[in-house]
């Protein structure tokens, strides 16, 4: 059943550099299960204290937007300049707002 040459599944690795920072994508590792993936992620992406916390996620479990979506998918954000503070003029007399 198990051939030694069967590829181990792929996992995406996210590292949190310091306490309080967000987890960021670091790369991927091959591993047979979640615990194995965490150990491989530590050896591959955290040999120099690059992480105080690691997440591993099966690559197949990630759903991503596609490049073709870029226009229409993000459209709703394009025409709402009033969501940004620069949209509003502050009267001249106000120095600190």
């Amino acid at each position, binding site marked *: *059943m*198990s*051939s*030694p*040459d*069967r*590829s*181990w599944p*792929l996992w995406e690795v996210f590292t949190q550099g310091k306490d309080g920072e967000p987890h960021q994508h670091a*790369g*991927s*590792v*091959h591993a*047979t*299960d979640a615990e*194995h993936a965490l150990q491989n992620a530590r*050896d*591959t992406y955290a*040999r*120099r204290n690059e992480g105080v916390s690691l997440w591993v996620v099966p690559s197949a479990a990630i759903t*991503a937007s*596609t*490049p073709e979506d870029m226009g229409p998918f993000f459209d709703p954000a394009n025409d709402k300049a009033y969501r940004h503070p620069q949209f509003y003029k502050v009267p001249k007399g106000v120095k600190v707002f």
Partner: protein
Amino acid sequence: MMQAPAVAEDPQRLEEFVARIARDESIEPKDWMPERYRKQLIRMMAQHAHSEVVGMLPEGNWITRAPSLRRKMILLAKVQDEGGHGLYIYCGAETLGVDRHDLVQELLDGKAKYSSIFNYPTLTWADMGAIGWLVDGAAIVNQTMLAKASYGPYARAMVRICKEENFHKRQGYEIMATLARGTRAQRAMAQESLNRWWWPSLMMFGPHDKDSPNSEELTRWGIKRKSNDELRQRFVNLTIAQVKAIGLTVPDADLTYDEASGDWKTGPIDWDEFWRVVKGNGPCNKERLAARQKAHDDGAWVREAALVYADKQAGRSTEAA
């Protein structure tokens, strides 16, 4: 030298892609890309990853004979880093739709290339110094350029690698500097090692631009940003000062300083030797592949056991549910 694409690309998509490269945009895995771009990247990244992995062998040779515990710990950490570098780049290559397993198989079958520098033997402890200083030093010059490559996953792997290579270069230079100020025999050992590694290190940048079959295309795709000769010159200029600082000399009677350009001009490189080693007839080509094959075979039971264990655990959790 342009090779005809295997498939005809949609001219409009190709034009948009070329425009993205011209705007220095980062190309990401799911983006449309021409087949030639994908093929060249897979070839180059696989070759790069293989170089990291095979690069563990010449240094691994000295771990058990390191002259002190400090040096042994450093060398172990460096060799482990090289394995890690291989993994970063294989994982980057996999984003292009290939499987690491297949890439490794191509290496073992002798179908894929790796950097020729690793086909030279490590005869003395000073070679650990020369490799860290010169080979990793040359790699840093090349990889600093590749950190700006147009393919995002490759560029990001290079940023990570460059940070780590600096430790590799420092520890190597420290070994050489220590030997160079040691006894007469130690000093001779350092010089002899530099003599052997100098020219192969210059060859690491590849043939002259006019003789480099892939350079034009890699440059056009924004993967390479500088030519082989430019990178080689940068390495020579950086290294000569370091050679002088520890009182050694490079084995090149024709070396001259060119005031006008500020460049150190080397004598001619023996390209016959370069091609001989690339084509498989270097001092250690067969030994390196045999060692890699043995490590792969010796690890087969571990890979199999891990899979069987995972299957068993998965079975158990379904039963429990």
